[in-house]
């Protein structure tokens, strides 16, 4: 387990350190607080994990989150039954993901460029729908972010269900294996007859759907849609994924690692408030965590390169 998820001991040490250092940190209420705050990030980051596994990237996740929230509060949707509103928002997420996926899979334009463009398109569309105004969310749509079921907050239940379901898909289904194969070597996957384009579209659709689900819980927690929702969120989501051990070069990663990455980020954020750190320290720590994650990813890449290089050298010597 430790070998598969090296971030787990990091999270445990972090939690223990903060619990010992700060009175009030190790309480049920605070654990609940951290879990609720991490939930939307976990949901969005799980979707991003699939995308990054295929050597892709989705910079539009924050804008999808905003557009989904804007659609939720639009006049045409907000008055409907709760289940219908949620279904419409999820459908919107699927469509946004489909647009990204088709553009990435059927053109040779890099995912970075495609999703950079759609990031602006989705944010602009969200601004158009909301008129850049703050819009309160009606009470019936807030439960998904604020209610509890058997004492467990609903966002936490959703995040757990998404993580478990996605983990199962990742490790036990043909689609999951295809994702890993496409990420490891797209050319080899194509030569082996795998539906590479279909897999790519599927990962972006999943990312869009999960961004919409994250939006439902996040907006419900906020109680209102605001024009700046989701701005810069892509950086936090990608940090959680990379910190969790998913390779930016594709082919390797885990849903469990991503969940741990999101929990570490949220715990650090909470710990900073408990520490009474200067507001300037927050940015330094956030940036350092991203730097550590990227350096760790680079180190793993170098290890892989070394592993590939050494046998060749030995063959040449022998």
């Amino acid at each position, binding site marked *: 387990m430790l070998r598969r998820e090296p971030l787990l001991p990091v999270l445990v040490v972090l939690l223990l350190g903060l619990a010992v250092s*700060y009175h*009030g*940190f190790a*309480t049920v*209420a*605070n654990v609940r*607080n951290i879990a609720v*705050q991490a939930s939307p990030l976990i949901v969005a980051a799980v979707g991003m994990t699939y995308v990054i596994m295929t050597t892709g990237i989705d910079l539009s996740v924050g804008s999808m989150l905003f557009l989904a929230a804007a659609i939720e509060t639009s006049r045409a949707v907000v008055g409907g039954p709760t289940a219908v509103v949620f279904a419409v928002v999820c459908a919107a997420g699927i469509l946004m993901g489909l647009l990204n996926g088709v*553009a990435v899979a*059927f*053109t*040779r*334009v890099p995912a970075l460029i495609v999703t950079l*463009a759609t990031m*602006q*398109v989705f944010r*602009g569309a969200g*601004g158009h729908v909301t*008129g*850049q*105004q*703050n819009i*309160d969310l009606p009470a019936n749509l807030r439960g998904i972010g*604020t209610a509890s079921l058997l004492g467990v907050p609903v966002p936490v239940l959703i995040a757990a269900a998404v993580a478990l379901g996605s983990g199962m898909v990742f490790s036990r289904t043909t689609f999951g294996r295809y994702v890993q194969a496409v990420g490891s070597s797209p050319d080899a996957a194509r030569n082996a007859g795998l539906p590479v384009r279909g897999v790519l579209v599927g990962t972006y659709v999943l990312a869009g759907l999960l961004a919409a689900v994250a939006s439902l819980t*996040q907006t419900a*927690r*906020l*109680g*209102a849609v*605001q*024009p*700046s*929702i989701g*701005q*810069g*969120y892509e950086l936090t989501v990608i940090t959680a994924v990379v910190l969790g051990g998913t390779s930016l070069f594709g082919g390797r990663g885990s849903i469990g690692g991503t969940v741990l990455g999101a929990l570490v980020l*949220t715990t650090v*954020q*909470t710990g900073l*408030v*408990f520490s*009474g750190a*200067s*507001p*300037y320290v*927050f*940015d330094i720590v956030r940036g350092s965590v991203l730097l550590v994650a990227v350096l760790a990813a680079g180190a793993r890449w170098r290890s892989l390169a070394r592993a590939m290089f050494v046998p060749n050298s030995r063959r040449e010597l022998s």
Partner: protein
Amino acid sequence: LKRFGVARCLAAVAAATLAVGACSSTTDSPGSGGSGSGGKHTIGVSFDLLNAIRQAEKSSIQKAADAAGYDVTFAVADQDAQKQASQIQDLIQTKKVDAVIVIAQDGQQIASSASLAKARNVPFLAIDRAVADQGNVTFQITGDPVADGKAVAEEFLAAAKTTPLKVLELVGGLTDQNAIGRRDGFNNALAGQPNITIAAQVPTDWNPTQALDGTSNALQKDPSINAIYVPSDFLLPSVQSALTAAGRLAPIGDPKHVFLVTIDGDQNGCKAMQAKTLDADIATPVDEFGKQSVAAITTALGGKPVTPKSVQAKGLTLNQANYATTSSQVWGCGS
């Protein structure tokens, strides 16, 4: 290969369509252009973005321009300094407007646009956000963030006369002069006050989610916090959500009430004032921005020098004591 060629063509067409759409969709031009043909004068307006306060600022300019008999051509730069420079160039050179009012996305980069306006003899006015180099700026009117922060502190000092306050101070964007001014004005006025303790300072980067999480975390850390300084009304719903989750959102007079003061005077603030969950709001004088900038344009177009060249307008304090008499002057309470 043929298939990829078609796909590339489609992608290029889609990108071009999006680019054209993005450029054209953000310019709103009710007037017919400049007065080069001898008609009404036209003011070109370029905003950095469009949100609730910008909508109010747009209305105040339109109202003042209508009263003075000017047309207005309006553009939004979507927080892109390059786009704003292009839009201003278009306003001056193509639409030939008679004056330009900007809310700068970047106070440094806007200098080249001011320089272009000066070269074309077009009055260039900055509102809301300060411009670094004012050499080519005809007139500038902004809020006074330090004075606003001080006005918030005065509300805290008045409340602390009866109850000691343990304060959570939210801070806006740490690279934003407005946020820093509001923080410094507040902190300097409260330095050494015995009845007020700053329990936590939490950065929000003007992000509602960070404000929500930061407030929740601070209330977990110290449940005895009984006052919160919210540096902008648009973060107020986040703070209220965090207070609701903690069972602390209660009206004034309730023992659970958390003393709250904010800045801007938007609809969020006015609603919370009416519900008596907000103690005070320092309202940005949005109407003054429109009135004084259009008056400065009239002076400049008449060939006279505009004095003073720079004005900092303090916010208007709206609290529960003066709500009935003052709310009508607050931009967010009227709509």
